[in-house]
Every structure is written in structure tokens, then in C-alpha cells.
């Protein structure tokens, strides 16, 4: 028998001889790769492939499969049938495995027997938890009316709950994904184009692309990244406008090192130049745009020379950009942008994106913004509710009452709900429901959010993980995660617009059942509805019924969960090209049936009908503007406790210009914290990245780090929280969205504040 050599025996022999001893013993011949019990088996050995996953590590929703061994998920992979992400998944998608089995995840319903913000948790049963939620909400409703309850939500699991809360008359519902992210992008596009293109821009087939602050590469949305890189490989000229040498700028032909908050001036100057030189797409403007003459006049003040000064860039560079775009029109990808809540004047900037693409004719042509035809699935509706005393929730929608924010995205601006929670004006809001959102990290001015939450009679929170908001719950409910439940129905097309047109539909289906006492939203809400006396109105009994219903409403094809399972998670059918046929004229679903270069509706509401640049306050002496962006391995705060992702990029370095650093005596890798204009300091510390790749008037860091909740044992206090520096915000008058790049910071090293040199 072969000598069984162990590490300890080896060390013993080695130490006795004080040298290495050759140990030549022949063991049995072995031609297989795996070496017994000591080798990992790999995901392909003795595993079952489970189809039907739809990712929610971010909101791009790649389609995936699970490799399952003995009932346990061992790996996630892209669904080979996917025409969107294929077999690929990003770091976060792959790391879903560490979310599902994260020991810190919420496991049982819990009651807070301590204080809000300083919780002490007591494990309770679902019966106790739902009874307490029903009682808490009913008490508020009885005392203050149905308008006394508000909802902050995020993600697909909140759709059924949101419909329920609407049914019981909750008038104020807010999704941070709109008011702190992409709300005004959607509305600006809707008003200008008549539809919301989201990020349907055909970069893969563009001859030139323009990205304003968009940092693909740090912002990883799988097929979007693939589109960008494919465009680059196919020879597109890439222009990136950013105060920082971002991952996208590093791939660009032209980096416009713009002064932050001046992007609209830049866009206006480019448009003026195109018009002045007569190198805009005259045919497209004539056929498909409305109000060109008034638009031309309206923007004429922003000359190249003026913009160069405002943007702190060479005039020649503005001209260079305009010439590249004109030369490659109409096959230009003017990226619509995504997260746009920067300065409180962002609606106008996004309008400028749309108008520039219009001047170039970059719509529904290879490379342009596309109006993509996806399949549509049904919805589950709660019946129209009847209320006592002629109560109408619309009468209590705060923005309507205040007659403010006429161009707001769906729902009530965050800030209005929060203010009402604090002041009780125009009526008291005393019950707060949070479903899947993390308002502590998403909303600026954290102290106000905390104050508002303290002022509640009842707070109910549902989540997957113990995020910072969960510390403020009275009752905390554990939800099944995206790998354990049915909900969202993903609809899309082939990722490359120039490829064979196809459409797909992929409902989210569980890969493994939930563990502990985690439940899906239909189960939770139905339990709550019954206890609140509206059990008769329940539209579906189970999550399966919910998804089946949505699938059955898909037109022209009979779909069901059973059918999708047979189709290995994705149903695919022939689609139609988003490109215009030669000779066709692009049509837009606006009032004029054209792109609204000049938007009268804005004028009627007292805003500028053509995109306009407004100056925002400059940093005070000794401070720089704080801007933030994404980490490629994180979806803001929600993925921070993922051990694998944390290991890849454990903290968020503060980017500091190299010349400034030299003057400040700061070296690459130094440990610092931040202090803002109001003297507020970050709780934790992080490292400095000293680089020539950033302007001197800006400090940059990735958003989402610096988790407060010690129950997140991986993420707690790792890196610093950029949101904690946003002690001020500015609310955009058009939309009610928050501006979050209006705060200024300096560094603290070894307890000493270090000013940013002029």
C-alpha cells in the first residue's frame, strides 16, 4: 500500500533532517484529472442544470441557469439559450451564489424590541409578524386615514405589494430608482421622443459614440458592455465626456476632461456649431423634428467660445467632437444616459442628449437610439377599491396637492414624503412601508430620513439582507431572493440590433426553494391582506399563479410556466428589425408626431422649452466637488455583503489628482476619510488613489460602500459612504428628482483636515 503522506508527516521529516528529503514512492497510476477527495469536483460533475433564472444582482436581468448538486446551488451560469447575455454573467451574476447562502441574510420574521436605528431583534412567527403589521397599519389608517401610510419600494418583488398598497389607498409611493437615479432621463425622453428608449442605443453598429458621464466598464450591464466593446472593435470613434478618466474614457479616442456640472453647456455648443456650419442632418430635422427655428434661436447664445470657458476645455475640442459626430451621422450613438440625478438641472441636460441625436438623425438607424419592439406580458391587478367617505387617494398625492413638479416620474418625490413625515403637513404620514429599497443609502440628507423614520407610529420593512434601512423597522420580514422565487418577466431582443431580429420572454423562476422562513411577496402580501380585511380582493393565490397570469396575457402565443420550463427558461420568437426601411421616415409618438426640439409643454409650465444650461454653485475655497459612480463588482449598497465581491474590491478608493496630492502631502494608498462643507465626516476610512486621471476640482469615489448595519458582517464599515457627505440636496423643479453632486469635500488624514489647494 502506498505511503500516505500528510503535510504534518512531511513537515516532521523535513524538520528532522533540516533539509528536504526526496520521497520517491510510486503510487498507483492515475490518468484522470481529479485527484480524489482533495480536489473540487467542478460545477459540471453530478449536477443538475435548472433553467429559468433571471438575475437581480443588478437590474439588467440576464437570464441564467443554476447548477444544482444534492439540492444545493453550486454555480450560476448564463443560460446558453439567451440571445441577450448568452453563457456569460458578470462578477455580480456569478456571485449570486454568495448572496443566496449568505449567513447574514434575514432568516425569520423579527420584531424590534429596542429602538428604531438601534434595534434589538426578537425572532417571531409569521403569524405574529403579519398580525403586528396589520395592526400597526390599521391603527395608522384609523387615526389618520389611508393617506397616513406611505411606501418606498424597489425591485421586481415589490410590484405585487405596490399594487396592494395602492388598493388600500396609499397615495404616496416612491421608487428611489426614479427620484435618485433615472427618473428624469425617462421623462425627458418620453416628452421629447414620445417613448422611453432607456439605454437602447445601438453602440455595436455606431460609427461614433458620445458618452456623457456614462462609465461603461465601471457600470457593468452585460449586453450593454458587449454593445460598447463591439462598437469599438468595429471601429467606432468613441468620445467620452467626464471629469475623470473613467473605464470608458480609457477606451476612448477623445476624452473631454470637462468641468463637472457644465455638460449641458457643452452639448449646446456642439449643437450650435452643427447648426452654424450647416452640418446637421437637414433631412431628418425637416421630416422628423418639431420647432427647429425656435430651437435654433433659443440655444444660439451658447457659442463654442463661451462653452469652452464654462466647461474649462479647449474650444478646438468642442469643434473636434462636433466634426466627428457630423462626419459619422446618422450612425452615431448619443448615449441617453441612465443615472442622471446630478445637479438638480438634469432634465434639461437629458433633453439636450435627445436633441443632439435628432440634429444628427441618430434614431432607428444603425448606431442610433432605437425604439425596440419587445413582447409585452400581462399584469396582475387588484380590483378598484371602494373607500368610505368618498376618499380618493389622488386628492392626497403630495405633488398634486402642492401643484409642483409637473414633469415628475411616476409616484411622489422622495423629499415630499420625507418632509411630510417630519412636519405632518399638509396631513400626517405616520406609517411607513419599505419594500426592497434602502433609503438610508439612496436618499441624500440621511439625518432627515432618520428623523422622519423616528417620527412614525409604525415602520414595516421587507428585505433579503439586513441593509441599513432594516435597522429602522418595527417589524422586519425576510424575503426569498431572486433565485428562490417567481416574479419579474424579462422581455428583450437579440443584443446586437444588426443580427437576426428575435424577441424573447423569460419569467423569473426559482432555481432552488427558499431556506429558513423566507417567503415570496405574494405569500406575504396575501397574508397581510387577509388580516387587514381585504382578503376577498386578493387577485392571485400564489406566486406561480401570478406569473402564469402574466404569461397568459402575452399576445399571439400561448405561454405558461409549464411551457417556459419546456423551453428551458426562455421563449424566443421571430422579431422585427428596429432599423427603418430605406425611404421610411422616423415617427414619434409625441403631440406633433415629431421629436420636440422645442417643447411647448415646458413653456406652459414656466420652464425653458429648449435645453438650457444653468450654473450651479462652485466649491468653496479648500474643497472640491464630490462626484460618485459605480464599482464594477457592486450594485450600489445591495451587493456589499457579498463575500466574493467584497474580496475583489473591498473598499472604494478616493480618486485625487496627482498634482494636488503632491501639494497636499498625500500619497497613493494613504488612509483617509472625507469631511464636507458642513463639517460632517465619514464614519469610516478608505484609501486614496493618486492619479493624473481626474481634474483638480473633483473628488471621486464609488457609491454604495460604508454600510452602517453591523449585521452585515462583511460590509460593515468597509470603505466610506458617499451619501453621508450629501448633507444638502437640490430638488429639480421640473421633476422633483434629487441633485446629488452638489456637495463639497476635503480630506482628513491622521485626524487632520487637509484642504484642497486652489
Amino acid at each position, binding site marked *: 500500500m*502506498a*505511503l500516505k*503522506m*500528510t*503535510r*504534518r*508527516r*512531511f*513537515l*516532521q521529516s523535513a*524538520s*528532522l533532517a*533540516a*533539509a*528536504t528529503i526526496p*520521497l520517491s*514512492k*510510486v503510487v*498507483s*497510476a492515475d*490518468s484522470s*484529472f481529479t*485527484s*480524489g477527495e*482533495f*480536489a*473540487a469536483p*467542478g*460545477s*459540471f460533475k453530478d449536477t443538475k442544470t435548472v433553467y429559468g433564472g433571471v438575475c437581480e444582482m443588478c437590474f439588467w436581468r440576464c437570464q441564467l441557469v443554476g447548477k444544482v448538486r444534492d439540492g444545493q446551488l*453550486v454555480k450560476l*451560469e*448564463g443560460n446558453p439559450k439567451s440571445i441577450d*447575455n448568452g453563457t*456569460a*454573467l*458578470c*462578477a455580480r*451574476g456569478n456571485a449570486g451564489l454568495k448572496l443566496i447562502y449568505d449567513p447574514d441574510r434575514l432568516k425569520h420574521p423579527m420584531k424590534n424590541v429596542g429602538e428604531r436605528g438601534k434595534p434589538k431583534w426578537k425572532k417571531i412567527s409569521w403569524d405574529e409578524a403579519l398580525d403586528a403589521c396589520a395592526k400597526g397599519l390599521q391603527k395608522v389608517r384609523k387615526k389618520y386615514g389611508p393617506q397616513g401610510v406611505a411606501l418606498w419600494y424597489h425591485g421586481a418583488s415589490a410590484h405585487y405589494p405596490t399594487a396592494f398598497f395602492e388598493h388600500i389607498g396609499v397615495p404616496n409611493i416612491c421608487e428611489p430608482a426614479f427620484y435618485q437615479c433615472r427618473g428624469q432621463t425617462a421623462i425627458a425622453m418620453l416628452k421629447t421622443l414620445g417613448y422611453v428608449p432607456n439605454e437602447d442605443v445601438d453602440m455595436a453598429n455606431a460609427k461614433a459614440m458620445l458618452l456623457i458621464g456614462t462609465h461603461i*466598464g465601471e457600470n*457593468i450591464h*452585460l449586453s450593454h*458592455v*458587449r454593445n460598447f*466593446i*463591439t462598437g469599438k*472593435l468595429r471601429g467606432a470613434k468613441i468620445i467620452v465626456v467626464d471629469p475623470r*478618466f473613467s*473605464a470608458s474614457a*480609457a477606451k476612448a479616442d477623445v476624452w473631454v476632461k470637462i468641468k463637472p456640472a457644465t455638460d449641458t453647456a457643452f452639448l449646446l455648443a456642439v449643437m450650435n456649431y452643427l447648426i452654424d456650419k450647416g452640418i446637421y442632418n437637414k433631412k431628418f430635422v425637416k421630416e422628423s423634428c418639431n420647432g427647429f427655428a425656435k430651437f435654433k434661436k433659443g440655444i444660439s447664445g451658447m457659442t463654442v467660445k463661451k462653452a469652452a470657458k464654462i466647461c474649462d476645455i479647449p474650444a478646438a475640442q468642442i469643434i473636434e467632437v462636433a466634426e466627428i459626430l457630423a462626419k459619422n451621422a446618422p450612425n452615431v450613438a448619443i448615449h441617453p444616459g441612465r443615472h442622471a440625478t446630478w445637479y438638480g438641472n438634469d432634465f434639461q441636460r437629458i433633453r439636450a442628449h435627445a436633441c443632439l441625436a435628432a440634429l444628427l438623425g441618430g434614431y432607428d438607424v444603425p448606431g442610433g437610439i432605437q425604439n425596440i419592439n419587445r413582447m409585452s406580458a400581462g399584469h396582475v391587478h387588484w380590483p378598484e377599491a371602494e373607500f368610505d367617505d368618498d376618499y380618493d387617494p389622488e386628492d392626497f398625492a403630495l405633488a398634486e396637492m402642492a401643484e409642483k413638479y409637473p414633469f415628475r416620474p411616476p409616484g411622489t418625490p422622495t423629499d415630499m414624503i420625507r418632509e411630510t413625515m417630519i412636519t405632518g403637513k399638509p396631513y400626517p404620514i405616520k406609517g411607513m412601508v419599505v419594500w426592497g429599497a434602502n433609503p438610508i443609502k439612496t436618499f441624500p440628507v440621511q439625518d432627515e430620513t432618520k428623523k422622519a423614520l423616528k417620527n412614525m407610529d409604525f415602520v414595516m420593512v421587507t428585505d433579503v439582507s439586513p441593509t441599513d434601512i432594516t435597522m429602522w423597522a418595527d417589524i422586519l420580514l425576510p424575503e426569498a431572493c431572486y433565485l428562490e422565487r417567481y416574479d419579474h418577466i424579462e422581455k428583450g431582443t437579440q443584443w446586437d440590433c444588426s443580427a437576426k431580429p428575435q424577441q424573447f420572454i423569460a419569467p423569473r423562476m426559482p432555481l432552488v426553494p427558499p431556506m429558513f422562513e423566507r417567503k415570496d411577496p405574494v405569500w406575504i402580501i396575501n397574508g397581510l391582506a387577509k388580516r387587514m380585511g381585504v382578503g376577498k380582493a386578493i387577485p392571485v393565490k400564489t406566486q406561480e399563479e401570478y406569473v402564469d397570469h402574466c404569461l397568459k396575457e402575452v399576445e399571439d402565443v400561448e405561454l405558461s410556466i409549464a411551457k417556459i420550463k419546456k423551453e428551458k427558461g426562455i421563449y424566443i420568437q421571430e422579431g422585427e428589425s428596429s432599423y427603418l426601411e430605406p425611404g421610411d421616415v422616423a415617427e414619434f409618438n409625441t403631440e406633433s408626431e415629431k421629436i420636440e426640439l422645442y417643447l411647448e409643454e415646458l413653456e406652459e409650465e414656466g420652464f425653458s422649452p429648449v435645453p438650457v444650461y444653468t450654473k450651479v454653485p462652485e466649491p468653496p475655497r479648500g474643497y472640491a466637488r464630490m462626484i460618485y459612480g459605480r464599482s*464594477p*463588482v457592486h450594485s450600489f449598497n445591495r451587493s456589499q455583503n457579498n*463575500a*466574493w*465581491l467584497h474580496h*475583489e*474590491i473591498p473598499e472604494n478608493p478616493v480618486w485625487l489628482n496627482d498634482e494636488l496630492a503632491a501639494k497636499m502631502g498625500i500619497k497613493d494608498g494613504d488612509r483617509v476619510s472625507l469631511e464636507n462643507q458642513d463639517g460632517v465626516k465619514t464614519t469610516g476610512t478608505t484609501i486614496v488613489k493618486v*492619479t*493624473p*486621471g481626474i481634474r483638480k476640482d473633483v473628488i471621486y469615489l464609488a457609491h454604495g460602500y460604508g454600510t452602517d448595519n453591523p449585521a452585515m458582517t462583511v460590509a460593515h464599515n468597509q470603505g466610506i459612504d458617499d451619501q453621508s457627505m450629501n448633507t444638502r440636496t437640490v430638488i429639480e423643479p421640473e421633476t422633483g428628482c434629487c441633485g446629488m453632486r452638489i456637495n463639497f469635500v476635503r480630506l482628513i488624514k491622521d485626524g487632520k483636515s487637509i484642504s484642497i489647494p486652489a
Partner: protein
Amino acid sequence: MQYAMVIDLDRCVGCHACAIACKAEWSVPTQFGRNWVHRLGPAKTPHGLSGTFYPGLCNHCDDPACTPGCQGEEAEKVFTDPKTGKTKKMTVLATYKDPFTGAVLIDRDRCVGCGFCVEACPYQARYIDEDLDDPRADKCSFCVERLAEGLEPACVQTCLSRARIFGDRDDPKSEVAQYIKKGARRLDNKVVNIGPNVYYAGNKRDMHLLKETCTPTEMPEASLIEKRVLLARMGKSISKGMGLTGLVGMAACTALASETNEEDE
């Protein structure tokens, strides 16, 4: 035949998918990696500002520094050429280079966890999880186990932008060979010159930054390694096993080592 990988930095966006897919595929402990992604820059280069990435993994070198000093037991193994099916019998240590594919592999059941190979690699491509009771070396296998099942390496399969290209360097028709022909380069120099088989392609500025900052500057020296590794590991293993915090000299170490060993049996 020699398996090789090309990483196209023009395509790579630094998303870390490769690193995480590998972790899942091979149950790699959180704190280690069979591969990695390091962000480089933005930094000045003679060709302009560069911001790029160092996606690294075992180089499966032509002349590996990690295999000759292996302290594991020898074994006779039968190797098979995946292309022709031809076989070859060879006596190898616990870590060895496959005579057909050129993949450098570890038979973990024969690894004794001495850490020699970990220290010998100038690219730091191997790791030992010291927290295990019976630690053994681990590293990238080019996913030969997956290849045998007709699958791509896990990192290649998950790559968003097809930045990782895998194949046979010696087959002129392979995409890998085409890249090499067009000038893909490896992280070597006059000092570290052991024939790495991971190649990098990219523009001048990114390649400059990568080569300047990520090419190892020296070969770990063998005798030094032996001494350091053995002492360090012995100390660590023993102090862990006996709950001691410090070392009290060689004699004590030896005594403790044999005691620990007896407990095992």
C-alpha cells in the same frame, strides 16, 4: 501542443467576472483566487494616459519554476493527447507539466502542502489555504477538467466581451496563435524568462503600463525559499495545532511536530 490564453485588453473592461466564475467553479476559498483582476492606472505612459487591467492566472510556463522542487510523492501517470488520443506513461511529482497539453497541474491527493511551489512562482499564481487542517496547493488548471467534457474554461465562458481567448499556441490556425503572430506579449523579461503561456494584447499605452507594472522583477530564489517556507510553515502549523502563539526554537518545534503527527494517527 501547448495550451495558452490570450487576454485582449482592448476588450477587457475589468469586470472581475472571470475571477468570480472561477471561484464558483472550483470552490476557491473567498480570500484566494486561481485568477485575479488588478486595476492599473489611470497613469501616464510614453504613449499617453492609460487605464487598464491585469487579469492574471497561472502561466502554465514552458519551463515552470514551481514543479521541480515539489516535495509530494512521485507517481506514474498515463497522459492522453486530447487531439490524437495518443497516450504516454510518465513518473511525475504532485505538480507537473502535462507532456501533451503543456498545462501545469497539481494532483492534490499527493500534495503535501509544503508550499514550495507557491513560493517558487514569480507570478504568485498558486495559493495554500492555511486555515484548512490539511492544506494543499491550488491554482488554475486551465480548466482541463472542463475541456475534457467539451466545455470552455469557466473564465472564458463567462467573459462578457470575449476578452479571454483560449487555445493551442502551437496550432497556427488557432485564434491564440493568430494573436501571438500579431504581437500579443507575455509578462517576461531577461530575469523572469520561463516561457509563460498567458499572452496580452492591447494598444501601446495599455501594454506599456501592464508590462512595466506587472512583470515580475526577480525569480524567487530556491534555497532561500526552502528555508523560509519550511520554517514558517512548520511554526504556523504547530502553533495552530497546539494553541501556542510563539516559537521556542528548533528543538521544541521538532518535538511538537512529532507530537502533532502522532495525534493524527
